[in-house]
Each structure stands twice: as structure tokens, then as C-alpha cells.
């Protein structure tokens, strides 16, 4: 009788799902805000928006330490991109593979309780995401590989911001944990 009244245990708790959703929105809108404030595609705003996005992603994985968090994040993020800002749906399969691989990287490099493993996972995720973006660029502009080379420079500049974001994200997560604002789900 008691068993029938006990709610079944779910892998994802609503609180964790809401955190993933809110951070997806923050990452998307922060990038948009910086790009608009910086006046489009200049190198500084390109680095800064990637720095902020990676820092927020680090805070997200520090908050929701569960296998599949990056996979779920890219799924939600790609869906939202498609609905709101014209993101391309053909990014989804590659993004899902990247998310899944990075969750495996975190799992096998020490698990979700080790900050080093989380940082490694996010670093690999950012790198794979850039490769997917370049792959998509190649599919679209394959007649002119020189344009893919121009895109590669922009992507490399963005990844520089991501690498900086790993350290700032770690620093921000530690500060937030110390302040009692960031508690693990």
C-alpha cells in the first residue's frame, strides 16, 4: 500500500531541468547581448561572448552534476535556436553526438564530483561544437573552401574566448559556492 503512494524516482528532477532551461536562455541571450553591444562581428566581442557562454556553461555543470547534462543542454539549446533565432536543425545530430561524447569524457575522467573532469568535459564540448559548426560551414560553402578558411579563423578566435571562459567559469563557480549561492542539485 505504501509503495503505491510513493512517487516513482525520476532520473531528472524538475529543479535540475529548470536550471538547464534557464541557463540555456542565459547563454543564448548573453551572447546576443554582447554581440549587439559590441556592434557585431568584431574580434573583441567574439572573444567576450564565448568567454561568457563558456563561463555560464561551467556554472551549469557545477550546479547539475549528472550524466547527460551536456547532451540535454545541447538538445534544448538547438531546439530554442531553431524556434527563436533561426538556428539550423541539421546541427542537432552533430550537437547531440558532441554532448554525449563530452558527458562520457566527464564520466571516464573522474566523474561529476571532480572539478577537473567537469572542466575537461566543457573544454572538449566547446572544441567539438566548433568542429561541428565548421563542418556545417563546409557543407554550406563547399564550392568555395577559402570561405571555410575565413570561418575557421573566426571560430578559432571564438575558441580562444572559450578557453579563457573555462578559467573564469571555474573562478565564478568557486566564488558562488563560497557565497552559498551555488548549491549542487
Amino acid at each position, binding site marked *: 500500500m505504501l509503495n503505491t503512494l510513493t512517487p516513482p524516482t525520476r532520473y531528472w528532477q524538475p529543479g535540475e531541468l529548470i536550471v538547464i*532551461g*534557464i541557463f540555456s536562455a542565459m547563454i543564448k541571450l548573453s551572447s546576443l547581448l554582447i554581440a549587439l553591444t559590441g556592434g557585431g562581428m568584431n574580434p*573583441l566581442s567574439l572573444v567576450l561572448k564565448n568567454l*561568457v557562454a563558456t563561463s555560464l556553461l561551467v556554472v551549469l555543470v557545477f550546479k547539475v552534476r549528472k550524466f547527460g547534462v551536456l547532451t540535454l543542454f545541447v538538445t534544448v539549446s538547438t531546439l530554442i535556436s531553431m524556434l527563436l533565432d*533561426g538556428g539550423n536543425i541539421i546541427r542537432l545530430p552533430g550537437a547531440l553526438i558532441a554532448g554525449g561524447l563530452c558527458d562520457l569524457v566527464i564520466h571516464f575522467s573522474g566523474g561529476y564530483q571532480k572539478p577537473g573532469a567537469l572542466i575537461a568535459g566543457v573544454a572538449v564540448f566547446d572544441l567539438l561544437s566548433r568542429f561541428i559548426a565548421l563542418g556545417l560551414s563546409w557543407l554550406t560553402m563547399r564550392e*568555395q573552401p*577559402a570561405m571555410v578558411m575565413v570561418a575557421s579563423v573566426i571560430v578559432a578566435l571564438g575558441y580562444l574566448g572559450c578557453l579563457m571562459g573555462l578559467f573564469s567559469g571555474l573562478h*565564478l563557480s568557486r566564488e558562488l559556492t563560497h557565497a552559498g549561492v551555488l548549491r549542487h542539485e
Partner: protein
Amino acid sequence: MQAYSGTNNTGFIHRLDARTKMAVAAGVSIVVVCLKEPLPLALIGIMGFFFLLSTGRFRLMALAYLFIGLMLITAAGCAIPIIKLLKGSDASYADFLVPFLRIIATMNVVLAMALSNRIQGMLSALKSLRLPLFIYLPTSATIRFIPVFMEDVRQIRESLKIRGFHIGVKSLFLHPILTLRLMFAPLVIRALRSADDLGMAAELKGIGLTTSSTHHNPTRLGFRDAFTLLFWVLLLGLSLGIEFGPLKEMLP
């Protein structure tokens, strides 16, 4: 974007189900990658342009075209010297026609979807797709959080202005790290607090328990959706036919 601005339009495209627009955008995105000839790509691009025109948001359309145009011209302008350096041959902007057409054809349909979707429409569409809760809940939280985030940004900017710090292009270039820290540290703290509150509210409401929710106003695909889907299926089929099939002789 419609979801950000909340304007209320009642044109043809605004009455289409979000699932129809998603299907059109997905179909076009996949087909344009397969095409290599300018004629079928131009056909999809022109029809996509009319699809986009039906949103009636001409100012945003013009801005999007201006932005994409500038981006493409800059990219091609940088690529031309690279081609000259690598191949030793001259290249002109005309050589970039096929990639440009591919980008514009995709942009027209995805932008039409983004400009005509309303928040409520998107949430209904997501619900009607019968996505599992672990995708539906964060996606709807993302959509619902957008206006809250905008309001948070406005409040933080105003509070910084009161303290004598103006956030803008100048501060971003002169003091990038300080600007980011002043702007984003409070934003992250507010977001984490909101997430905690919403998470607790969701737990208390019993979201995600065994019983499935009932739909007050279930969305159904109508005649308009069927017509639009049929039109785009025929158009994409025709484009593929021109490129690969019996209509290939039409090509110059």
C-alpha cells in the same frame, strides 16, 4: 523576434501551426545542402522570400538582410585573396553565388519561423510534439525565462547607471572584464535564485509525476497547414528533380 517583442499579427503565416513551420524549415535546411545548381537554389530562395514577406515584419527583414549581406561580402572579400594565394587564379563575387544562395534560402524560411512564432504558440507546439518531460520542461523554462532575463538586464543596467557606470559599446571596449563582471555576476546570482524558486514550485505542483496532463485547447493541423506542407513538399521535390532527376535538361 516575435517571441521577444510580443506583437500580435494575424497574417497567413501567423495562423500556421508552429509544427508546420518547423517541418518547412527542417526540409529546406536538408534539401539546400544536397543542391549544387543555382537554379533550384534560387527557386527555393525566391519562394522562401515570399514566405518571409508574409510575416509583415519588413524592418526586421531589412535588418537581417543587411546583416547577412555585410557578413557575406566581408567573408567573400577575405576569401578572394586566399583563393588568389592558394590557386593563383582570380576570383570574383560571382564565384560565391551557390554558397550565398544556399545561405539565403535557409535564412528565409528559418527567419520566417522565428519572426512569426509567439511564445504561447511555441509552447503549444512543443506540447503537441509530445516531447518527453526532460526536454519539454527545460525548453519551456527557456522560453518563459527570456522576458525575465530582459527585465533583469534592464534593472541591473539602471542600478549601475545610478552608481555612475554606463554599460555600452565604450565600456565594453575600454573595460571589457569589469563590464562583464558588473553585468553578469548579478545576472547569474538572480538566475540561480530564480531556478531554485521555480524548481521548488515545480516540485510542489507535482510536475513530472505519473499522471499525464490534459490539454485545455489541443492544437490541430488545419487546411492552411496541409496546403503549406504540400506546397513546400512539391517545391522541394521539383528542385531535387531539376538537380538530379528527369528535369535536369532544363538547366542551361
